[in-house]
């Protein structure tokens, strides 16, 4: 099923970190309230019309459930949508969005008792910020420790908000800043200089060891940082099922070594079967869109999972597959935005 788009109204816009990021508050039409109940860590699959061209992006909701529906978008160099949001989007504008999506989620519970470690870098703070707030307000017996990497103190998103949380919950929340190129000309002194690496992770856990022994580890940053953080945790014998991560603001592991081949695909969408030609350099999603089909998709980088489908016959190569777990891959699920054909006949079913 193709998920519906709803028209959301921009009700407030705020510059973050001197204009390098923008927070946008969106108002949901009353008839869509139910669909827009989100969980901390989820994102909005958005559709923008910019200069007559459609662009799709996923942006994380940077507030916990119950607060304003807010996204926070970091400017990327040459990025069409992020610069549009920063420079041209205005209060009163309409933005189209499907309902919140994503399974990098923290479900708080009033009687859950956990120690949460959050490892973030750059704009990867956005889902973590929502999760931290959810823990502090809705999981009163749990604690949260944030280890947050940035370039300099000027690029720390939600700096003041995080400080305010640390002041409000001194016994349940700590934040540690790590700066890779700290400025000499500031009073702000970070916890450490450098990166969120194995040494920093070990030091943070040593300084604030788990209180509650149900420990969860949440990682969100660029792909490389995620990989390194997960590897560091695994090296300390953290069980993999306690580690949750989402790739953000940079490529994860992308494998472009395999070239696709031209193929004929039978694609079932909304119970209709279509025959689609997939060119060697096309992804299954690109071929489907070019053939006039309208399957769900959003981030087009293998992160959000919107474009998931099931491969019933044939073989594909996925350049990235962060949104799938091993079980789903074993069941034959694929991310169509990342799949190129490896056999000349494919049978694919969208859910």
């Amino acid at each position: 099923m193709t998920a519906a788009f709803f028209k959301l109204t921009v009700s407030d816009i705020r510059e973050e970190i001197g204009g390098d990021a923008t927070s946008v508050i969106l108002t949901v039409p009353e008839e869509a309230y139910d669909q827009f109940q989100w969980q901390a860590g989820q994102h909005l699959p958005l559709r923008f019309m910019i200069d007559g061209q459609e662009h799709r992006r996923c942006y994380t909701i940077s507030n916990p459930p119950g607060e304003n529906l807010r996204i926070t978008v970091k400017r990327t160099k040459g990025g069409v949508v992020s610069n549009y949001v920063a420079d041209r989007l205005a209060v009163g504008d309409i933005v189209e969005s499907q309902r919140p999506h994503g399974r990098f989620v923290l479900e708080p519970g009033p009687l859950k008792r956990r120690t949460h470690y959050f490892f973030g870098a750059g704009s990867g703070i956005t889902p973590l910020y929502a999760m931290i707030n959810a823990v502090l307000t809705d999981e009163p017996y749990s604690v949260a420790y944030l280890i947050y990497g940035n370039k300099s103190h000027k690029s720390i998103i939600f700096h003041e908000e995080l400080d305010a949380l640390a002041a409000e919950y001194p016994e349940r929340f700590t934040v540690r800043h790590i700066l890779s190129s700290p400025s000499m000309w500031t009073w702000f002194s970070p916890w450490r200089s450098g990166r969120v690496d194995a040494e920093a992770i070990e030091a943070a856990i040593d300084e604030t060891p788990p209180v509650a022994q149900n420990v969860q580890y949440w990682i969100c940053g660029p792909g490389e940082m995620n990989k390194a953080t997960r590897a560091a945790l695994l090296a300390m014998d953290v069980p993999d099922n306690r580690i949750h991560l989402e790739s953000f603001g940079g490529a994860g592991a992308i494998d472009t070594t395999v070239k696709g081949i031209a193929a004929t695909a039978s694609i079932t969408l909304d119970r209709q079967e279509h025959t689609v030609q997939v060119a060697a350099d096309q992804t299954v999603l690109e071929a489907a869109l070019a053939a006039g089909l309208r399957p769900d998709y959003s981030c087009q980088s293998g992160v959000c999972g919107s474009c998931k489908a099931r491969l019933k016959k044939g073989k594909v190569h996925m350049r990235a597959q962060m949104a799938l777990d091993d079980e789903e891959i074993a069941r034959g699920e694929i991310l169509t935005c990342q799949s190129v054909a490896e056999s000349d006949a494919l049978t694919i079913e969208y859910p």
Partner: protein
Amino acid sequence: MTRMYHRLPVEAYTSKDWFDEEQRLIFSRTWRFAGLAEDVPEPGHYISVQAGLNNIFIVMGRDRRLRAFHNICRHRGTQLIRAVGKTQKALTCPYHDWTYDLEGNLISVPDEAREFPNGVDKKCFGLKPASVDIWRGMLFVHPDPDPPSLAEWFGAVDPYLGPHKPEELVEYPDSASSYEIRANWKIVVENYIDVYHLSHLHSNTLYMYDHAKAEYGWEGPHYHFWEPPAPDYAEDLENNLPFPRVIPKPHSGAWVPMLFPGIGIGASEESWNLFIITPLAPDLTRIQNRSKLANVSGWEFQKQQWSSWGFWKGFGGPKYEGDDTIDENDPMASGDFTAEDVYACEQQQKSLYSPYLEIGPSAVGESPITNHQQAILDFMKAQEAS
């Protein structure tokens, strides 16, 4: 006819059958006190604890998270580790050297090819996981790998346990003791929560607190109790405290809860004490005491001792004196409230076997006793049903 002791039959305090049922339905199915968080201070350290029918060990991983497992080798059931110790990466059973990593995975079987020609599927013989968590600086274990959280278990009673932060206090090592009382564990609990006896058995030992103003009640099976300092003591409280404060002013009084089952805490302005009750037999109970005091210099302790000397120099005394005492070891002449309690418990236990025993009316201040008996009945019934 079954003879009753309030809500329980007398045999609940004397019979092996009742003891076995309590072991099975109460002590093997609840969070059990296992020690203080500092007992497992570093990765690789471990301790084991008997929790009802289960022996459970706690080990800290390199990620500083505690893991708990049933202390049973998956080969022939031998207890894997001894009471306390340290290991680098692995736990080896002494019997045939089967070895497990700190996640409980079986990683090595000696002479595997020769002794097990069909192989051993190591994946199927990991240690059975249990649960561990920390609450107010105390370690608790539960035999179930997925039990109700400690927040579910202690959350409702927590606000009544006082403003103490035991994890910030330091243990006073000389205070740690373990001794046995020749009485059923419930007799010991009932003595602990009997408000009526405080002004009588302890008339000369605990009168720095005002028993008449005690506030007490229940949250589920957990009992909570608080009483303010008595007027004489409160008049110059800051100087009268025998040790430096462990809680911020103006909090004052004594918090003496009894968490279920048999986890007693006695906390006041200047100390935090544990009184852990473990049944050993129908008529034998072990008590473990541990105490924590303020984490301040010896000089602060010295100053407080001087300032409080005036109050304590004439304080306390024996309940019985002169001809009323048996000899110099008479607990009733000791002036020590613990000795008084132990004596009362053991004397009561002896009478439970008499055919002439008939229990009299229950006082208002003894309502915690009947409540505790009911809590036991309710808990066992619920466990039997589940």
